[in-house]
């Protein structure tokens, strides 16, 4: 059995549509595939998420049938995670502009180095929204990440409703 590497499924900053959809194969282990923590799935967030500054390591997991959603799970606390999604699936022309400091912090040299993930909030009534104001940007090569506030954040909303089916 093969699984999709999560790092093929993001969008870049400027060339997001062209970079979408690339898949890499990894070899399965005896564990349930979606639960497997591998070095290449561990995301390092030196500054944490806003409000969760002390939690700096996450693992990005996929569960079969849940694409395009991914789980950003706390490495040291498997019971807590954030549901995230590539914005390409939600708003195809989404293009957050990163500040020079964020580009430096993440050591991005090319827009294609960046994978963007947006936090999804699930609501009790089966509704969901996506945070477009504070995307998580991951350097695909180093897996260093930061929740950034883009310089054009004013153009995007915090709770972008997505229409979902149960």
């Amino acid at each position, binding site marked *: 059995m093969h699984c999709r590497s999560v790092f093929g499924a993001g969008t870049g900053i400027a060339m997001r549509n062209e970079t979408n959809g690339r898949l890499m194969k990894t070899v399965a282990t005896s564990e349930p595939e979606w639960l497997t923590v591998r070095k290449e799935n561990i995301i390092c967030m030196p500054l944490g998420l806003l409000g969760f500054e002390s939690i700096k390591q996450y693992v990005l997991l996929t569960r079969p049938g849940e694409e395009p959603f991914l789980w950003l799970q706390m490495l040291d606390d498997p019971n807590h995670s954030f549901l995230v999604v590539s914005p390409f699936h939600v708003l195809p022309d989404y293009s957050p502009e990163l500040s020079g400091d964020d580009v430096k912090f993440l050591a991005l040299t090319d827009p294609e180095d960046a994978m963007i993930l947006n936090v999804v*909030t699930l609501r009790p009534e089966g509704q969901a929204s996506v945070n477009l104001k504070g995307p998580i940007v991951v350097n695909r090569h180093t897996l260093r990440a930061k929740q950034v506030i883009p310089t054009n954040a004013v153009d995007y909303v915090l709770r972008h409703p997505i229409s979902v089916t149960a």
Partner: protein
Amino acid sequence: MLILSRKVNECIVIDGRITVKIVRVEGEIVKLGIEAPLDVPVHRQEIYEEIQRNNREALTEGRPKVPRLPRLNGVPVKDAKKTE
């Protein structure tokens, strides 16, 4: 709270590594220039707090069932309205 008076172009130094400069004063608006190391995040308070709140709300315990987007395979969800 420490309160300091500053003129335009004057600075405040915090912890020897963060500099806050008064760049311009236009009526009720004060423009600040902030120089801080890359590992010191600097945000406008309101936006910081609203993202923080949203993250807390989004934190998920266990593995709830995830809803499905109506269309997959790269076909965008077009009917998602851009409203707050």
